């Protein structure tokens, strides 16, 4: 209502300002790419290390034009995305189940607290070599790294949400006739779900990062593998091409999750979304 009123009275300036901001954003990106290209052409930036946009774009175009083969970029993207989704889903399920159990059972939580804190303190990316040794260079090691990254985010989100759930909500449904099961499924899990949705974009981003890093360290296929391969041949254009593909995937993933988050948060006041 207030938003509609604001648009009605100030429609023209608001749109004009929005366009101006968009113009500035494009300008900043164009300047960045232009500087890169220009400094590289002038020899200030060494092409060997930093490549240049005019080489990177055709390279990516070449990858895309290659068509669907076992070694194509599409296969790499497919594998990376599968690893991301599996890491995300398994990590989330484990985080919810264990986070819920620990929040509901104080003794369990207290007993496992030091161990979990210890694991959480380890920068998880250093576990990548361990997982590659243990699970091999295929899918499993990439998923395992993603799971350890996602698990802690979701675990803490669920644990805090369930532990700190408004007691009035619980008391109210109990007097209204809720059984234990109803309290779990109508109050505690929805409260946790809302916290998980809020951390959705962070945890999915971590699942993606986990997959790419593990691929980079040891794999036969995937976008991370493509970067590692290029690096092995001192092919900086290939490395940057891979980075651009990763950035594009990450942006697409985030845009999709933003829509999902909005849909799941539609019960929340706008300022809290």
């Amino acid at each position, binding site marked *: 209502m207030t938003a509609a009123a604001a648009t009605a009275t100030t429609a023209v300036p608001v749109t004009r300002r929005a366009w101006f901001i968009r113009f500035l954003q494009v300008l900043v990106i164009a300047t960045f790419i232009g500087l890169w290209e220009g400094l590289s052409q002038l020899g200030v930036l060494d092409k060997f290390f930093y490549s240049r946009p005019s080489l990177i774009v055709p390279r990516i175009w070449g990858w895309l034009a290659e068509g669907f083969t076992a070694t194509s970029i599409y296969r790499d993207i497919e594998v990376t995305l599968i690893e991301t989704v599996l890491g995300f889903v398994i990590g989330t399920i484990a985080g919810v189940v264990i986070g819920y159990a620990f929040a509901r059972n104080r003794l369990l939580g207290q007993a496992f607290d030091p161990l979990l804190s210890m694991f959480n303190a380890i920068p998880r990316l250093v576990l990548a070599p361990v997982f590659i040794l243990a699970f091999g260079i295929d899918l499993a090691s990439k998923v395992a790294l993603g799971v350890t990254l996602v698990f802690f985010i979701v675990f803490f989100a669920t644990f805090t949400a369930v532990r700190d759930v*408004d007691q*009035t*909500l619980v*008391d*109210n*449904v*109990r*007097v*209204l*006739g*809720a*059984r234990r099961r*109803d309290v779990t499924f*109508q*109050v505690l899990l*929805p409260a946790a779900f*809302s916290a998980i949705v809020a951390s959705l974009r962070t945890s999915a981003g971590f699942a993606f990062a986990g997959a790419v890093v593990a691929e980079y360290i040891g794999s036969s296929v995937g976008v991370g593998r493509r970067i590692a391969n290029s690096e092995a041949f001192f092919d900086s254009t290939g490395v940057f091409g891979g980075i651009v593909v990763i950035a594009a995937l990450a942006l697409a993933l985030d845009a999709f999750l933003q829509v999902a988050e909005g849909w799941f948060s*539609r*019960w*929340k*006041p706008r300022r809290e979304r």
Partner: protein
Amino acid sequence: MTDAVELRGVSKTYRPPRKMPFLAITDIDLAIPPGRFVSVVGPSGCGKSTLLSLVSGLLPATTGTVTLNGSLVTDVRTDVGFIFQRDALLPWKTVSENVALPLEFRSVPRPEIQRRVGEWTARVGLGKFADSYPHELSGGMRKRAQLAQVMVGDPAVLLMDEPFSALDVQTRNLMENQLMNAWGAAGKTVLFITHDLEEAIALSDEIVVMTAGPGRIKARYPVDLPRPRHVTEIRFHPEFVALYERAWADLRDEVTRSYERSLEAS
């Protein structure tokens, strides 16, 4: 006829972990016959809200017995309606989904749920807001939705914990009048907690004044004002004024005592 609510020799001691236990209420003897509207007034911290937790079974009494609708309270009771002071609607459910909850818990058939939910959301004037989420409603509307949620299950006893304290004066008077109309029609027993003596007298058949904590019953006053009442206009009735003066003399001492204690503690 058995009393709807009966407390005998009830006390409640809270034992928070790593803190001193403290006695919230003690020596409570109170019986409420069916259909009676009883208000409990007292200074803040006198354990008024504790009374409702004990009657609903959300908390066990430390000593004494609590009886509700003729049976001893040993666990959470679902044959009462509890209107909490704070917002108790589930924020991720719409008004009609919230109102449907008690019926779903009782596995009432779907068509009947729809009928009763529709009836009650309309009765509290939220028909147009059935599909709205709680945050989209005003404070008064959320309270009405809470009332519908409780009433749809048709409880014999209503427990209300300062239900209107967060509302502005106009909305509050409107809600009090609506409550009077609904109560007059339904004949339910009501145990109403408030710190507002005027509200207590305007609504009730009887008011109970409590002492500063640990809460004891200090005095009980029957309210013999004519019904049906208009809660704003009844305040000018001579008997209202006389009763107010007597009860306030009791309450004032307790409020002062409670205030002095809070100063000592800080």
